[in-house]
């Protein structure tokens, strides 16, 4: 097993005819993902290297049976694209697009949470179940099928973590990039629930960063509800307050959202926290020995 996506998942790409959309659609297909179609309004009937393009998501779902989508449309149209996927009944929606206005996400968030669909992102690398299904922009080859569920608010830092767990021979069950924006569709807690129930996942690695309180909330949840070994890393220990570190979400404001607070909450929940980004793999190994 795995979580959210597997070899049976049928994926479309919204924004397939754009540069990034085309490039990563083909990258996902090369990895082995069932890329069954794409959507670009006005370009229905065309194809991208044999992958059919549709005008609407509704049509794409009817023709292909797609149950997942990755969204590459420009930021002003991303909220609409997510809502269209939701309307068409797509179960896993990965919004890769960076730069979506926050208030657009307020509107979308409520609708997503009221549905039985899952939104990953926006501003995220996507998700991957190694050897089965890659939806997003991560380099596939660093992943190996295995035991560790990896979830993160950061893209390249996830690659670093995956690479380290692969080097330890642990491999990954499913890796999910939650996204770096203030409002994202899926939280650490949502995924803890799924990883906890997943047979393949034997340990969970959570990669957080400064800003907000998602890590503290996750720590409280783990303390109560998670029986599997958990390791964590928090990026931004040395970031100064009031400065936004790239991600709109990564800002310490009013003395809240510091790395120290987060690390303390995690350790209090029995989570092994890696002291540096080079120790994420080791932290998982240590958590599994505990």
């Amino acid at each position, binding site marked *: 097993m795995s979580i959210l996506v597997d070899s049976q998942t049928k994926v479309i790409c919204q924004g397939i005819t754009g540069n*990034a959309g085309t490039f*990563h659609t083909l990258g996902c297909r090369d990895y082995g993902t069932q890329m069954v179609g794409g959507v670009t309004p006005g370009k229905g009937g065309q194809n991208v290297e044999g992958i059919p393009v549709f005008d609407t998501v509704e049509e794409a779902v009817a023709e292909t049976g797609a149950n997942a989508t990755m969204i590459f449309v420009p*930021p*002003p149209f991303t909220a609409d694209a997510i809502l269209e996927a939701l309307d068409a009944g797509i179960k896993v929606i990965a919004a890769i697009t960076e*730069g*979506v*206005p*926050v*208030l*657009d*996400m*307020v*509107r979308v*968030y409520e609708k997503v949470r009221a549905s039985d669909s899952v939104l990953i992102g926006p501003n995220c*690398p996507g998700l991957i179940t190694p050897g089965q299904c890659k939806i997003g*922009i*991560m*380099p596939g080859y*660093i992943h190996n099928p295995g035991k560790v569920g990896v979830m*993160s*608010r*950061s*893209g*390249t*830092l*996830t*690659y*670093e973590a995956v*690479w380290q767990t692969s080097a330890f021979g642990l491999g990954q069950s499913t890796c999910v990039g939650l996204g*770096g924006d*203030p*409002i994202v569709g899926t939280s650490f807690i949502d995924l803890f629930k799924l990883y906890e129930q997943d047979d393949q996942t034997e340990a969970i690695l959570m*990669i957080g*960063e*400064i800003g*907000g*309180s*998602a890590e503290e*909330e996750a720590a409280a949840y783990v303390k109560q509800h998670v029986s599997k070994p958990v390791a964590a*890393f928090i*990026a*931004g*220990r*040395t*970031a100064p307050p*009031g*400065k*936004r*570190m*790239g*991600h*709109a*979400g*990564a800002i310490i404001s*009013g*003395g809240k959202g510091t790395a120290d607070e987060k690390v303390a909450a995690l350790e209090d929940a029995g989570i092994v926290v890696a*002291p*540096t*980004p*080079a120790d994420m793999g080791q932290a998982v190994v240590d958590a599994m020995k505990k």
Partner: protein
Amino acid sequence: MKIHEYQGKELFRAAGVPVLQGIVAKTPDEAAAAYEKLGGPIAVVKAQIHAGGRGKGTVIDNPEQHGVVLAKSADQARAAAEGLLGKKLVTIQTGPEGQTVNQVFVEAGCDIARELYLGIVLDRAVAKPVLMVSTEGGMEIETVAEETPELIHKEHFDPAVGLEAFQVRKLCKKLGISGAAAKAAAKFMPAMCRFYVDYDCELAEVNPLVITGDDQMIALDAKINFDNNALYRHPDVAKLRDLSEEEPSEVRASDAGLSYVKLEGNIGCLVNGAGLAMSTMDIIKYHGGKPANFLDVGGGANTDQVTEAFRILLSDPNVKGVLVNIFGGIARCTTIAGAVIEASKTVGFDVPLVVRLEGTEVEEGRKMLAESDVDIITATDITDAAKKIVAATGV
């Protein structure tokens, strides 16, 4: 993006949020004329910089000169402007180097009966904007939140609907507002919430919000941060950007599509991805060094961007070495390697350069660097990279 108080108040006025009359001045004479035009008997001269705490802040080398000054005559207004214009004002938010005052806002006085606080931000935990009010007007709201959180009253609202009338009544009750002032609040609070949504704000803060002797509600300050991602739908707001208020190297970086934050240390960092960039700073610090910056070249970085990134890093005189940490995903190691070689020709390195490459096209990228004549210290992983750059910069 931030704007000045006087600009914020112009937007407030247009949105039906009551503000006082005021005139912006760039010279002492203009400030005196503004006083005359407003008609006295009192006016307030306020330094316009993108930082809070101006009232308590003082000018460098002149601790008597505060950033907000009461004037009772045109001469006093002129003197206040003289004391501020062209000077560096240091507040709790500017850092010790202060920020240059290029203009002052001369604003009419008013009869203040009560000072309140009002702020609107996004509450990430529930993914909705939240209106916060407090009786502790004029105080640092962070301090209030820390020491007396029970004095901050909150109401979440749906952006599509705005603040409901009953929510205003609840807040008025908690603030001890009734009668004509409560009627003023019934207009003021929903207008502010509408403003927050209509302009895609990240933060809209009025501190203090005053109730006058005749029960008017007036925004005495205006602190607004806009969501940069939404500026495309507010070209009128985008025009208000004041580049002189921003760190020049950060402006240069944002023009090149790079995410850069200048820091105090001496090790320049060039990284792809915000999380990895933060972690690279962390691990440098862990091994005893001090990062000079946060720099995320992003996923689709091209040669021009990376070259510009090197130029920005090396133009910081504090930088004694550069660490390049790339985990190629969308960004290919070959692109980065090519850019490093290109930058060494066009920019030139006179400080040690440590490069750690991993990810997409890593073998080819490493080969390109090895075969080039650029003087590079290569690193195998991020611990190795951090140790080598710390050693090379001799800290």
